[in-house]
């Protein structure tokens, strides 16, 4: 929905006003938006840095993340190894930088996949109703009865461990939650006059859904996608920690912590410490960004249960 500014009005009328009234440029509006949400901006910047670090990992990581130095096992943080080394003499910092790739790909992948599939189910079941709606809702209810990590764990075990299977496994618990929200907003939209109008002028069901319903469910869906981004990252780490996710020697944040904490406490606590800080940081950043997006798009929307 475009704003009715004097510019757009002029465009509709087909002429340029002789003296344009002062309008904030797009950049200025962006700056104002960012200043009104300082925490969200901070979150976005941290996420952006993480994404850039993941993309350019081979150029910024000081060491090979999978090749260990047998002469440097359990080295504490030093000038040589900023965050220390692990049981195989591998540099923790390099593994964290490369691990950001897996974490972010799985996090974004799972939340986008879950929200897309959930929306497809929710919007169609809300729009068409009938027995299809009833069946879809019962299936979604059943999926909601599983604790999130449990459903993901069972799926990951069933599918086998690879990056794309972990993405599918983590998307599963997001599907019913996205479906419920998009179904609710579809039911509300269905009663509005513009949907009635679109049907009256003979739009096909597909066109009505794609052109009129989906764009209007976008705001709440963007909010839950960012809310589940952090959650998917935490659960990915949890699956890896339990041994059901990404396997060695790949550098995954969850896997990096999976040694015995009791024996590491006195020898090399940094092995457990730093991956957790990395997870906390990225989840915190995505939560802050998600909260800001929610505040901007829909102040009335309830916080999704995290």
């Amino acid at each position, binding site marked *: 929905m475009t704003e009715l500014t004097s510019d757009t009005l002029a465009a509709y009328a087909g002429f340029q006003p002789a003296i344009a009234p002062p309008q904030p440029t797009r950049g200025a509006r962006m700056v104002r938006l960012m200043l009104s949400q300082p925490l969200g901006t901070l979150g976005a910047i941290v996420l952006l840095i993480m994404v850039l670090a993941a993309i350019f990992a081979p150029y910024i990581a000081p060491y090979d993340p999978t090749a260990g130095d047998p002469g440097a096992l359990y080295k504490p943080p030093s000038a040589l190894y900023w965050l220390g080394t692990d049981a195989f003499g591998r540099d923790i910092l390099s593994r964290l930088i490369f691990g950001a790739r897996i974490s972010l790909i799985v996090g974004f992948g799972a939340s986008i996949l879950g929200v897309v599939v959930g929306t497809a189910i929710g919007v169609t079941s809300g729009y068409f109703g009938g027995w299809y709606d009833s069946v879809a809702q*019962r*299936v979604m*209810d*059943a*999926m909601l*009865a*599983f*604790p*999130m*990590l*449990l459903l993901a*764990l*069972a*799926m990951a*075990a*069933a*599918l*086998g461990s690879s990056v794309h299977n972990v993405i599918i496994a983590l998307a599963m618990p997001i599907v019913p939650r996205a479906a419920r929200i998009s179904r609710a907003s579809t039911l509300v939209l269905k009663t509005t006059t513009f949907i009635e109008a679109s049907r009256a002028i003979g739009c096909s069901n597909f066109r009505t859904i794609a052109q009129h319903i989906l764009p209007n469910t976008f705001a709440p869906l963007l909010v839950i996608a960012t809310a589940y981004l*952090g959650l998917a990252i*935490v*659960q990915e*780490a*949890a699956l890896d*920690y*339990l*041994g*059901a996710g990404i396997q060695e020697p790949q550098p995954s944040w969850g896997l990096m*912590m999976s040694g015995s*904490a*009791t024996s*590491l*406490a*006195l020898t090399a*606590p940094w092995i*457990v*410490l730093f*991956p*957790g800080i990395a*997870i*906390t*940081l990225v*989840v*915190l950043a995505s*939560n*802050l960004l998600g909260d800001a997006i929610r505040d901007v798009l829909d102040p009335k929307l309830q916080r999704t*249960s*995290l």
Partner: protein
Amino acid sequence: MFGYLAQRLATGFVTLFGVALIVFLVMRVIPGDAAVMMSGAGSGVVSQEELQQVRHQLGIDRPLVVQFADWATHVGKLDFGTSLRTGSPVIEDISRRFPYTLEIVVLSMIIAVGLGVPAGVLSAWLAGTWIDRILQTITIVGLAAPSFWIGLLIILGLVFFFHWSAPLFWRPIWVDPLASLSQLFWPSVAVGLRQLALIARMTRSIMREVLGEDYIRTARAKGLSERRVVFRHALWNGALPIITLIGFEIAALFGSLIITESVFSVPGLGQYVVQSILDRDYPAAQGIVLILAAIVVLGNLAVDLLYGLLDPRTRVQGGRA
């Protein structure tokens, strides 16, 4: 009320049937079937015939529909079959492990509610001050930190400062209450911290809203003490959404529980479900997953009913409000 209850129970039953079906199908898809795992076929000494024999013994060579019907009728009689891993009936394994998990759930909820609600009230009452800011910062970081990492950090700290080691024998609460509580205290802290942060933040936002209401101004104008205004007038009215949140959080609690029990090697249901799934012990996995889901479904139902009890406005006549 009775009609509503019957309807909700019926829906809950349908949901559980769906859960059973999903669990059954997922467990059957898992690569490397139980017969292969059991007979140690990885070594290559077991012939195909022997493997087939084990499958026949387990009854997993029958059509899926027959297997599901068989399983479902047994579950109806609370018979979940025999664990392939421990060799004892699944229901016995579960009842032996249940007390530990229940104790962690209760302890962690006490920690989360007992500290979260006061923290939230304090934060709302002092909104904008530095105390509020500090509490807000702690809780938002608490929400972001993975609970199993918190568990690992607790272990690091305990070992480092107290030379702690994982208990060899876990004491049930009825045998030695004090030892049991002290053994399960730290796992409960790890499970409860996230919930604490969430409850504190929710309580704060609910209380801020309530404290802005007109009747609070009236109460203050009447000259009531601040303590009476906050606790008697505001908290009492904000209690309902807080209770609802706590109820729904029980499901989320299971998520942290599953992994935290594995971190501390607590012999509870969480560790059992993880091991069963990873070892393809499907009678055990099916049984325990179904029970955990049933607890979630019944918990949500209980919250709904409690809501009706506490708030007369949402009480239903015959149908859903």
